[in-house]
């Protein structure tokens, strides 16, 4: 079965006159996962509900291939749309077993065929032993796999996931994510993953879209958006970023050494701040803490506070003085309109 891309064109949704989703263009290509990233209140969940048909747009069009799913005049109801949903709270029907939950979406098939397909999905997600269990008897990870099997079993033309991993223990999350996104990718359907976890977006998605204030600010491959964000908000959405104000003498010295234009605000991610004995500027190490494989440093250079990372053993400790430079390839510049 071949899948068509889901296309959103100039989608706008207002509540009481206030636009919560405004003029959004987005394409979900088949066989790939698009991560929708943004702070809470950015309009991510509303956009997902619009694609699912749970809400109607006030303007714009949502299409699957050439077929119009949503427009202000036409709305294919959610139950006719064939869009799979995976929820943060899993939303398993409490009165049905795992198998019955998965079979729920296969009502169009004859009983035996539905049973066989549901069982195949249960097996594929490693739940063969748990098919007869009710949701309250399943662990969080198992519940989530049931909800994925349930969403994928009817062969939806798109899969929408609303923060599906944030309800899981951090220790389970990575494994669950691999299993879930593996199954979704194998299905070949276009997928949307709503998340506020930058790391999840970077590691799991084929495409990221940054949403802020109801608008999509930037869309692109994760690494491209991370390294070349379109604006400061997009930069911050995918991880911490240092801002060095243009008029500051420390900025001027660092800019000159890195070959960056003078007078402009500079943005640089922590890994672009280098501890270098020949660096142009001296900085004080205020804190230095081991955060996983690396050490995270908070530095002060003149008026500017900076965040940097360093190797766990050789990086300076709190109270040390060190010299710093900027990695010329890591400096991000925005146009004069940037905030």
């Amino acid at each position, binding site marked *: 079965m071949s899948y068509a891309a889901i296309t959103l064109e100039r989608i706008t949704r207002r509540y009481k006159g206030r636009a919560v989703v405004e003029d959004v263009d987005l394409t979900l290509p088949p066989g790939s996962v698009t991560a929708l990233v943004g702070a809470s209140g950015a309009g991510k969940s509303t956009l997902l509900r619009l694609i699912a048909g749970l809400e109607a747009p006030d303007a714009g069009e949502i299409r699957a291939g050439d077929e119009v799913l949503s427009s202000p005049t036409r709305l294919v109801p959610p139950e006719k749309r064939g869009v799979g949903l995976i929820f943060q709270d899993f*939303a398993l029907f409490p009165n049905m077993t795992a198998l019955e939950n998965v079979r729920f979406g296969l009502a169009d098939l004859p009983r035996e065929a539905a049973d066989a397909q549901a069982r195949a999905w249960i097996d594929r997600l490693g739940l063969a032993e748990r098919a007869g269990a009710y949701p309250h008897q399943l662990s969080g990870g198992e519940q989530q796999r049931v909800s994925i099997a349930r969403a994928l079993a009817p062969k939806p033309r798109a899969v929408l996931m609303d923060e599906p991993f944030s309800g899981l223990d951090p220790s389970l999350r990575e494994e669950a994510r691999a299993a879930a996104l593996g199954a979704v990718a194998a299905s070949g359907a276009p997928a949307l993953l709503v998340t506020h976890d930058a790391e999840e977006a970077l590691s799991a998605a084929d495409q990221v879209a940054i949403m802020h204030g109801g608008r999509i600010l930037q869309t692109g491959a994760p690494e491209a958006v991370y390294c070349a964000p379109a604006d400061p908000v997009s930069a911050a959405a995918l991880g911490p970023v240092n801002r060095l104000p243009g008029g500051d003498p420390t900025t001027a010295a660092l800019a000159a050494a890195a070959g960056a234009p003078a007078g402009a605000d500079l943005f640089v991610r922590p890994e672009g701040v280098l501890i270098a004995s020949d660096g142009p500027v001296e900085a004080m190490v205020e804190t230095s803490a081991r955060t996983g494989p690396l050490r995270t440093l908070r530095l002060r250079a003149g008026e500017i506070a900076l965040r940097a990372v360093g190797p766990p053993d050789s990086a300076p400790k709190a109270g040390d003085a060190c010299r710093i430079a900027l990695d010329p390839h890591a400096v991000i510049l925005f146009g004069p309109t940037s905030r």
Partner: protein
Amino acid sequence: MVLFEAVLGGGEIWRHIASTTLTGYALNTVALLTIAAVLMLITAVPAAWLVTMRAFPGRGVFEWLLILPLAAPGYVLAVAYADLLGVGGPVQSALREATGWAARDYWFPPIKSVPGCAFVLASALYPYVYLTARAAFVSQSVCTLEAARSLGASPRRTFWRVALPAARPAIAAGLALALMEAAADFGAADFLGAPTLTVGVFRAWSSYGDVGAAARIAILVVALMLTLQWIERRQRGQAGSAATSVRWRPLARERMTGLAALGASAFCAGVFLIGFALPVGRLIWVALETAPTSPPLGEHVRNSLVLAAAGASVAFVLALSAALLGRGDRPSGRLANTIVAAGYATPGAVLALGALALAVLLPGGLAGGAAIALLVWTYAVRFTAAGAAPIEAALRRAPASLGHAAQSLGAGPIRRTLQVDLPLALPGAAAAALILFVETLKELPATFMLAPYGWDTLAVRAYTLASDERLAAAAAPSLLITLAGLGPVILLSWGLARARPGAPGA
């Protein structure tokens, strides 16, 4: 129908009532509600505060004992108190024996008066205020209370400045609900000689036979009820938004010692004794004393069971439909909710009046089968809201994502209702069925006005015996009604204990 009659209704008797007794009805209603409100506030709110925030001997028992008066309808307490406090009753007899006075040598507060009726209704209905106040105190954030204490506020100041203002909307909502019940009461008010507007509706119909005049009074009653209902809904809305902290911890109850602990126990014991133990104990005493001579009740029990089963069944189907329709924000659901709520706001006497007006249009008039059908219809209209509430609560506990999941899996509205919503509603449905059965069993005015000859229920029997001053004979049917009422009350208190945030298993 009532409205229709009110507009077209005849003038002569209405003018008579309007010029003579209408002002009295209205003043009595206002006085009754005011006194009852004060009594309920000064007992229920402190009791709720004590059992939720303080530790004292018997606290755990009082927590649910204080709900029990909900089991006894107002007219049952009225019968018991008329017997207890009447001239020939044990209290005044003991007083005369102790002092040697004769009956006319002293003044004793008359129970058959507006204040007496307010006292009885407050005893029967204070649990509404107690329950909402208790729920508000339980669900308040411990953090805000601890913040107040850490900012140097004394426990007294914490109560008056932080806890009470936060609970005020909930208390007001409970009070409005209790006052709705008090204003709709017919049995106690009529028996205790406190002619309120609701009693006026009945009298205009029974003494003057004027449905039009009764309907005009009924409109005043319904307006009053809708006002109280509006207050209740408004306050409940505010109560919902009042919770700002979502972190629950078990309440750390402050231990009371010495006289204070004794005082707290005595206060709660007093409220329970007056609201339930004394009157019901008296009824048991009288019923046992007169058991050999009292008339048999078998026929009334059967009538009660048959009518309650029929009324509850119809109301149950309506309640379930209304609750399922009300899921989601569809216009049909909102309309159903409005109709159901309006029925609940209309006193039984007024609904019965509407049914009587309808019966005139029937070819056979108010004959046997038609009368019973109308009575069952009246029960259903009156109580559907009471049955819909627990079902809606069960549905609300399920996240909205379940419905969305069903939709995204291709389930249309009917399949979703049958396979997803209905199973979710079932835990509430059992409670709804029980509540509906007991409410119907307790119903007095509509049954009295509509039931055909030979169909007297326990409630009607208790009321007519009491009206004939055969108080001893009225004790047995009153007790049976109270006994039936205990079922849902125990269920309610059990549910409350489990629903408390921070409780084990919640």
